[in-house]
């Protein structure tokens, strides 16, 4: 901040406090009146004699009390310098300054920017005591955050849809359905955690100071809650469990198509962020996600039930593929600065605001056009048109992106709505198949 900007900001405060180190070694403080005169900060004479032979610190702070709550509008400016006497006070020779205004740097961002200081302090405390002092969360919250468990709805929707299409074709095995879901969830957990591991190693998450509950990773590594090595172990366990169950299903069904789909799914999920491919860094994140959570997972669930592949589940998978890719796509919008900083060239990094916004609308509407086209073409049963009830959500998300493109925290509600768009559409498609089976 330039000195004129500093003075401009200081002029918004009502009062300030001058402090210096007294001769007894204690800090001395006095409130002081001040005014900004041209390019100078002037302090009026105070009842306590202000020193001119040492550094003073001047702080201006502001809050707005909110009865029954506490306060808001937190901001402060702290200035170091020396005082030069003049007729009725002092001119401040500003040497340096520091401050925070939650209107400019929202509290969550301020916290993220301070992670290194927290780590430094806890490391020092650990060194002093000879035992590791680290931040703690309950096992429940740690697991939920580290694995980003709520995002498993993506797996749930795809597998339910694949099973529903198989059911429509007269095939259903409850045990296989259960194993399919556990295998898919395990791979999904492996993927989520691997994503954090590789984004942690590349520095993408560390460079992102504006994470939200939908974007910027789980933050458990950056916050020192789960060490990188444990995240690697969790990810590997997810992949091992998922792969073992997948092999079991291949053996039970004898479906080589299922083996091919499983291998493709694991390959895409690992190399989504893992070097050397790092597909998401090449602008292929959306395509990879669409393939993984769309055709691969829906066809995989279908193949487990029927032992073969078919066009109908492929068509049914396209809308959820597009909508899951759009979750990633919208979630990448607030991550743009951090991603760009480490060369993670996602589509929102590559494209203009207008292009990103319009591409969302076109892609989301295309998902519903596929449903209509699928019904007309006979690939989807008529009741799946019930999924069109989710169309209004498209426009709510579109409007939110337009309004809050550059405001990560305000965009959070839109990101949540976008997750709903995928979930609701997927579940309505599932419901459409159930209706079709029933009638």
């Amino acid at each position, binding site marked *: 901040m330039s000195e004129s900007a500093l003075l401009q900001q200081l002029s918004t405060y009502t009062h300030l406090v001058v*402090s210096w180190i007294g001769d007894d070694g204690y800090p001395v403080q006095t409130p002081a009146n001040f005014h900004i005169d041209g390019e100078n900060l002037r302090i009026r004479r105070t*009842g306590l004699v202000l020193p001119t032979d040492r550094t003073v610190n001047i702080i201006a702070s502001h809050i707005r009390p909110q009865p029954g709550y506490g*306060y808001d509008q937190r901001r402060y400016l702290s200035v170091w310098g020396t005082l030069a006497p003049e007729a009725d006070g002092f001119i401040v020779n500003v040497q340096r300054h520091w401050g925070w205004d939650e209107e400019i740097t929202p509290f969550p961002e301020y916290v993220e920017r301070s992670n290194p*200081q927290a780590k430094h302090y806890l490391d020092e405390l650990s060194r002093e005591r000879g035992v590791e002092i680290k931040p703690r*969360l309950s096992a429940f919250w740690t697991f939920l955050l580290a694995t980003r468990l709520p995002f498993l709805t993506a797996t749930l929707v795809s597998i339910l849809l694949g099973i529903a299409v198989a059911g429509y074709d007269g095939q259903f095995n409850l045990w296989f359905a259960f194993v399919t879901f556990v295998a898919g969830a395990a791979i999904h957990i492996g993927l989520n955690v691997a994503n954090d591991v590789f984004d942690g190693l590349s520095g993408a998450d560390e460079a992102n100071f504006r994470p939200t509950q939908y974007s910027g990773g789980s933050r458990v590594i950056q916050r020192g809650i789960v060490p990188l090595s444990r995240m690697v172990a969790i990810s590997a366990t997810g992949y091992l469990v998922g792969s073992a169950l997948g092999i079991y299903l291949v053996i039970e069904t004898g479906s080589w198509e299922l083996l091919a789909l499983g291998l493709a799914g694991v390959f895409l999920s690992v190399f989504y962020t893992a070097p050397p491919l790092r597909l998401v860094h090449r602008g292929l994140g959306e395509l990879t996600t669409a393939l993984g959570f769309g055709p691969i997972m829906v066809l995989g669930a279908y193949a487990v039930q029927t032992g073969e592949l078919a066009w109908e589940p492929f068509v049914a998978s396209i809308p959820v593929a597009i909508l899951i890719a759009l979750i990633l796509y919208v979630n990448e919008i607030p991550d743009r600065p951090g991603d760009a900083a480490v060369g993670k060239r996602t589509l929102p990094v590559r494209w203009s605001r207008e292009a990103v916004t319009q591409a969302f609308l076109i892609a989301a509407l295309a998902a519903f056009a596929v449903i209509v086209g699928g019904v007309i073409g006979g690939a989807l049963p008529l009741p799946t048109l019930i999924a069109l009830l989710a169309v209004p959500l498209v426009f709510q998300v579109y409007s939110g992106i337009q309004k809050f493109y550059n405001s990560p925290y305000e965009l959070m509600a839109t990101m949540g709505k976008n997750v709903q768009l995928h979930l609701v559409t997927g579940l309505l498609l599932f419901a459409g198949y159930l209706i079709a089976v029933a009638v």
Partner: protein
Amino acid sequence: MSWIPAPVTELLDKALVSELTVINYKGEPTTHPLIPLWDGELIYMTSAVLFSRKLEFIKQNPRVAVAITDPVACDSLPGRCSIRGDARIIEDDPHTTWEQVLPLWRAKEPAIDLFVSKRFAFPLFFERSIIEITPRKVTWWEDGRPESEPRAASTEEVSS
């Protein structure tokens, strides 16, 4: 019963924000806005490890001062004060020890319960240390006018 004059204890009771001045590694003052919590004898503040430079400074030099100067943050009390004292950091377990002063904190900022219930969202914000300040000397401006001569009292005067 505290030796601190009533006009100052009233400010300590009411203030939603104060200015804590500590001494940095270069021997200069550095000031941070913090909520002052007052139990009738000692002043308490808490600091997240996220914003822990002040804690490092206090560990190196425990001499501090606390100013209460914003009438808006003091329920419109006109007075102003500054309290010099000695600080110590209490952080046996940064995860839980600070909760000792939660009742005092809650009294001034009821919303803290809401934030504590969502501590999973800001885990490092709730790894905290207590700054306990023993007052040694107070100066206060009853009329709140900085240009007037402040009154002063100290523990030495009381004990003598």
